[in-house]
């Protein structure tokens, strides 16, 4: 490190912290890649600012989106954030595969430190800033609509969760441009991440980005859980909730209980690094096993936090595109609950090899294997739902099918890892990397993208292009098999994970195949971008304003697409499971109500974006030891919360006339639309009015 510039003002910042300066001084491939990545972030930010200024959209962005407390807009913003971060983490994955494929008895083009940063950011982003925001966004968007509610329980808390997540993501991005990120992996294990071994900014970036994300997720979980408990429409008993609501409830409960351990782990690591505490150090009584326990008490349930919503999505998708009620609804609910409870009983399988007794390992190994039971129940239920159903092989359904196959394969390798003696053999190898990507890519990513495809017409009022959707499916599925099946082989052959260079020529073909797979996975993302582009271009031909393009079953399909701000002009009454589906068959679901009444909705608020900004500033200041800015940011957060508590005028009224106007316009669309049978639902004839099949 070179000398700091103005320590009082800029803390430990030095010119050397900028990748551009480093690339100027040492123009090798490694530094140029770093500078290129930083340049992309800067260029992207400048482009966004310039575009918004050119289009004159700043005021619109602030009023309609940033300060909005509408759960639907917050949900969409979460998903947008997730897609941006997915792009970055996927590029990093490609770089890593390329490095390993090119570094067989050769140095490759990325330096070891840089490679370590890549796998640390890839993991941290994919979990905390891709999967978590994506699923939180989906839950935000869908849960109130599915339970017949106008809003979530705590709209402001919801917005604060979004903007704290964005603050964490901003720190991740800042680490590309200013300073370096952690080399300690996504789990940030001390003592390596302690000051003694990692004195730079890296672990601090990791700590504060993850802390912001975990606090935000705790808030999101709290909000979703209370929404599901307290905001259901009349008649929506727990056992009448759509399965996605059940999985959201379990996920939310897991967030409430499993995010605090992460907050504790990162906070104690921060105490070690900043104030010289000895929780996890090698000396003076510190014990890193405390960290392993704390981290995985979060980390294991986290696996189910990211997978359970996907299970809910697949349940909705399979049932809708099979035209059948979900087989074994009750057993699916029980299985979901069982998984949520069991998820807290297995955390120790993440450190079988760290020296506890054989008995403890055996107990946790058995506990781990039991998770296969409720998961198996679910797989059978989905298969039975399709059985004798009128299955339509649409894009979301293809994801569901690919998931079922692939996830079972991954589950079997999980059973191998759950045997402590076998785990000893493959623990720190690519076998483990293959296993968890095998679970998380079909289990989470396919589910999230399936949900995006499935509910996109609901959110935006037009369908996504089916052809490019299928191209994306093909890329994700083929790419996955090519990228990760070789890793099982390599892992079983003993190739350790997090390796920057390889000295075994026999690995070469497998590494090449994996690299091709990574490129194809990247094509999957490219196909999604093309799909979005084509769909926006052709949106007029693909509009589904009536709101029910797939002959949907649950309440969200019973309203306009996109839904009005207040969701339901009249709060529905529900008599049974899949209420809307049966309403369509028993009576007219789109009848105009006798009268409309005014609705109170939360007014926009600046509180959440201000808190996000202050949170990002505090985190950044702590990373760089700019103590004055950290103090300003922290005080700003407290003052903002107190000031907000004095605001009384927090609601605005949507008048009955306005609602009547909106609803009448929609009902006119319904009257104009032609009912569409399922066979041609992907044609431009589909305006979102499903033909009722007996």
């Amino acid at each position, binding site marked *: 490190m070179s000398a700091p510039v103005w320590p009082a003002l800029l803390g430990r910042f030095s010119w050397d912290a900028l990748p551009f300066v480093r690339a100027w001084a040492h123009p090798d491939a490694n530094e140029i890649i770093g500078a290129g990545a930083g340049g992309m972030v800067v260029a992207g930010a400048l482009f966004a600012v310039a575009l918004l200024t050119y289009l004159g959209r700043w005021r619109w962005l602030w009023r309609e989106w940033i300060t909005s407390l509408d759960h639907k807009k917050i949900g969409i913003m979460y998903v947008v954030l997730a897609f941006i971060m997915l792009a970055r983490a996927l590029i990093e994955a490609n770089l890593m595969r390329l490095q390993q494929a090119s570094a067989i008895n050769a140095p490759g083009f990325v330096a070891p430190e840089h490679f370590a940063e890549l796998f640390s950011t890839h993991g941290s982003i994919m979990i905390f800033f891709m999967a978590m925001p994506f699923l939180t966004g989906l839950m935000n968007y869908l849960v109130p609509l599915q339970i017949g509610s106008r809003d979530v329980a705590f709209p402001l808390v919801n917005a604060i969760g979004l903007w704290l997540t964005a603050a964490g993501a901003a720190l991740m991005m800042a680490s590309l441009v200013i300073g370096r990120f952690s080399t300690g992996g996504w789990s940030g294990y001390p003592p390596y991440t302690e000051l003694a071994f990692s004195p730079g900014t890296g672990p601090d970036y990791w700590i504060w980005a993850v802390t912001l994300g975990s606090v935000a997720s705790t808030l999101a979980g709290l909000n979703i859980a209370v929404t599901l408990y307290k905001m259901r429409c009349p008649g929506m008993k727990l056992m009448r909730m759509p399965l996605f609501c059940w999985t959201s409830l379990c996920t939310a409960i897991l967030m*409430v209980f499993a995010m*605090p351990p992460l907050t504790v782990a990162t906070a104690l690591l921060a*105490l070690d690094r900043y104030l010289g*505490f*000895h929780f996890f150090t090698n000396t003076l*009584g*510190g*014990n890193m096993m*405390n960290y392993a326990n704390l981290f995985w008490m979060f980390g294991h349930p986290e696996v189910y936090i990211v997978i359970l919503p996907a299970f809910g999505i697949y349940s909705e998708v399979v049932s809708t595109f099979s035209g059948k009620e979900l087989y074994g609804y009750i057993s699916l609910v029980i299985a979901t609950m069982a998984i949520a409870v069991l998820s807290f009983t297995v955390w120790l399988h993440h450190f079988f090899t760290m020296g506890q007794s054989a008995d403890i390992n055996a107990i946790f190994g058995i506990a781990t294997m039991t998770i296969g039971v409720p998961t198996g129940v679910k797989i059978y239920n989905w298969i039975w739902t399709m059985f004798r159903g009128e299955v339509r092989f649409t894009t979301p359904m293809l994801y569901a099918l690919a998931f079922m196959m692939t996830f079972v394969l991954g589950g079997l390798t999980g059973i191998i890892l759950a045997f402590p003696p076998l785990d000893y053999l493959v623990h720190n190898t690519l076998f483990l990397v293959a296993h968890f990507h095998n679970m998380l890519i079909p289990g989470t990513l396919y589910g999230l993208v399936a949900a995006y495809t499935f509910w996109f017409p609901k959110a935006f009022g037009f369908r996504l292009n089916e052809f490019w959707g299928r191209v994306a499916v093909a890329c994700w599925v083929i790419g996955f098999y090519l990228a990760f099946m070789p890793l099982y082989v390599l892992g079983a052959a003993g190739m350790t994970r997090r390796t920057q260079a390889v000295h075994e020529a026999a690995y070469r073909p497998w590494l090449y195949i994996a690299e091709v797979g990574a490129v194809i996975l990247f094509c999957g993302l490219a196909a999604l971008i093309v799909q979005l582009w084509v769909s926006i271009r052709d949106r007029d031909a693909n509009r589904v304003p009536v709101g029910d393009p797939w002959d949907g079953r649950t309440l969200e399909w019973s309203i306009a697409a996109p839904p009005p701000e207040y969701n339901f002009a009249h709060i529905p009454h529900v008599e049974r499971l899949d209420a809307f589906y049966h309403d369509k068959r028993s009576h007219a679901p789109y009848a105009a109500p006798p009268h409309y009444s005014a609705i109170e909705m939360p007014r926009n608020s600046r509180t959440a974006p201000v808190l996000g900004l202050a949170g990002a500033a505090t985190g950044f200041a702590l990373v760089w030891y700019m103590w004055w800015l950290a103090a300003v940011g922290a005080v700003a957060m407290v003052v903002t919360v107190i000031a907000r508590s*004095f605001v009384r005028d927090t609601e605005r009224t949507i008048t009955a006339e306005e609602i009547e106007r909106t609803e009448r316009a929609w009902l006119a669309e319904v009257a104009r639309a032609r009912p569409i049978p399922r066979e041609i639902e992907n044609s431009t004839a589909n305006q979102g009015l499903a033909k009722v099949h007996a």
Partner: protein
Amino acid sequence: MSMDATRHAGLPVDHGDAEAEMDASRDLFGFWVFLMSDAVIFALLFATYGVMLPATAGGPTPASEYKIGPTFLETLVLLTSSLTFGMATVALKHAAQRRALLAWMAVTLALGLLFLGLELHDFADMAAHGAVPARSGFLSAFFGLVPLHGLHVLAGCLWILVMMAQLLIFGPDPRVRINIQRLGLFWHFLDIIWIAIFSTVYLPGLIR
């Protein structure tokens, strides 16, 4: 869902207005969920403390640092403050007694600040013996757990001040009433955590 089934067991927030009662029930339930989450944080710090107890690294030990007198006094002060907050809640029930409500909240605030003063004095005492968090794993665990409770008390004191100001400005409107009830839950929660600290940190430390 019938109204009766969801009505919360606490104080009526707005007599007769079913919707406000529903809102109150939701808001208080949400705060219970938050407290559960916070309780997990304390539970983990207790567990960490338990594991780190022997890790004194040749430095100060529980027996050498904990003093029953001041700690018992702190306990008395904090438990009394829970009683006085209870009195404030009773005053809240009768909308006319704003002065009594303010007075009881002021007493609670004073007791909270007294507790913090006593605790800081204890910490300073320990630091004077060289019992600082950087000295050993055991002391790190102690200073991770006990001052976090203190920070919560500090936040509670700030919250009491804010609520007193809001009472003066808005009177006991529904939002003030709900927030005082949330504050009450928070304050009693801190008492419970302190009882756990007193009985699993200080008492066994003194017996040893």
